[in-house]
């Protein structure tokens, strides 16, 4: 068990090295002659106008909130699924009830119009 986690740890350290090495080679052999025209932001030939990192539609924020609720729900459900053999029918129905409460939440957000992209 511990060996497996050592493998994951080593992989976590080594995995970025492969792509990083692929980026190092062009540093050594590729030409590097930047000029103001070349490094200009590419927007289909049109000159870029104003600030790029602007504030954006808050609709994304509400979707993210709904996502957060469901993601946390599923994290709770994983132990429930793994321990399924030890659970009596009652505990299973309890889990189902937990899901249904969240479905009710989803229906509520649906009725509230959160899920509309407008």
């Amino acid at each position: 068990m511990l060996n497996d986690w050592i493998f994951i740890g080593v992989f976590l350290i080594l995995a970025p090295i492969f792509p990083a090495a692929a980026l190092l080679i062009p540093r050594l052999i590729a030409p590097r002659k930047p000029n103001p025209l070349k490094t200009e932001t590419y927007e289909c030939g049109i000159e870029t106008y104003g600030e790029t990192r602007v504030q954006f539609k808050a609709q994304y924020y509400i979707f993210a909130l709904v996502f957060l609720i469901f993601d946390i729900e599923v994290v709770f459900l994983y132990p429930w699924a793994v321990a399924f053999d030890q659970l009596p029918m009652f505990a299973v129905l309890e889990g189902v009830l937990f899901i249904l409460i969240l479905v009710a939440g989803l229906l509520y957000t649906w009725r509230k119009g959160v899920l509309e992209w407008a």
Partner: protein
Amino acid sequence: MSDPVNSISEWLRTILSGWGLSEGLITVILAVLGVVILATIVLVVDIMLVWIERKMVARFQDRLGPNRVGPFGIIQPIADVIKLLIKEDILPDGADRFIFNIAPIFALATVLLLWAVVPFAPTIIGADINVAVLYIVAIGSIGTLAIIMAGWASNNKYALLGAFRTVALLIAYEVPMVIALLVPVLLARSMGMQTIVAAQSPWYIFVVPLAALILFVSSIAELGRTPFDISEAESEIVAGFHIEYTGMKFGLFYAGELLHALTVSALIATLFLGGWRGPFVDQVPILGPVYLFIKAFLVYYLIMWVRYSFPRIRIDQMLGFNWKFLTPLALFLLVVVAILDKAMVGVSQVQYVLVMLGANLLIVWGTVIILRTYARVERKRVGEERAVAIAPESDLADLVGQE
């Protein structure tokens, strides 16, 4: 007959302990070796994927595809890599240099990391951890982070738009994906990949086909492939998040995307198509990887087929499809599977599989009926006459008169 990987590892272990190294150090050295070999194999397969993908898309579009470099153009990807390596790497004005540089590294590294938990044979697996499914979900979402980083750091409005769209897309399709992953976990009572594969008799696609379908659809969305490729929609935002990337950095995004598709295929094959299971695999463990890759490429072929057959859908349609259709469906399926599984304690396996399969098909049938009703209502609504603003006729006449 033991498999070669483990016998070589045992042999190395004896040699290293003969040198007087401590047990912990040997484990780390062997892990490093394992990681390097695994990653190298995966990256070589990745380079070949470029050729497979280009050849397939050519066939789908009635073209020949690469056929000049080597037999059947098979050395084409090598030529591509050399070209990308010697291309100038441009850092656009106003870009966030650090994040701009590490985003492509993230994009490929996270996909590589997923291969740590893919089981290749009964005894060959990178790390048989007991939370492998959660690991997949966790590492898989870091790939999203790479796209957001790339879009944000590029200092380009198209890139930023692509990144924003990716966020909305990926946080949406993560939900049905995770719920669909929960179904095999529930059936196998474990999150470990080896346990899930060992529990699959018959394969889970014959027990819960609907879960496999939901996972397949949401995985395509997670990959950002057509019909869900709004994050790099060429005709709208040019190339989306990687618009400013050149040379090898672009190459890493490209390689990461292709490899991600194969990785997801391998995971679907492991979770629903029995992974390394196949005839004679118990006697000859080395057949396991062969079966796994055959199944993975089958799923990969399906992903390509979908990619080159469907048009891109709009972002509002896509989010509606997820939140109003896929998520409720996945939750409903989970509830049905959980209750049926508990209710069928002690029945024979054949009965169990038949009831599960029947329940799945019943849900599909009900869903199709609901969808058909919805489509009818929607067609009526769209077909209704609406007030449309038209310029008065006199103005038009004036304009024509002035010409």
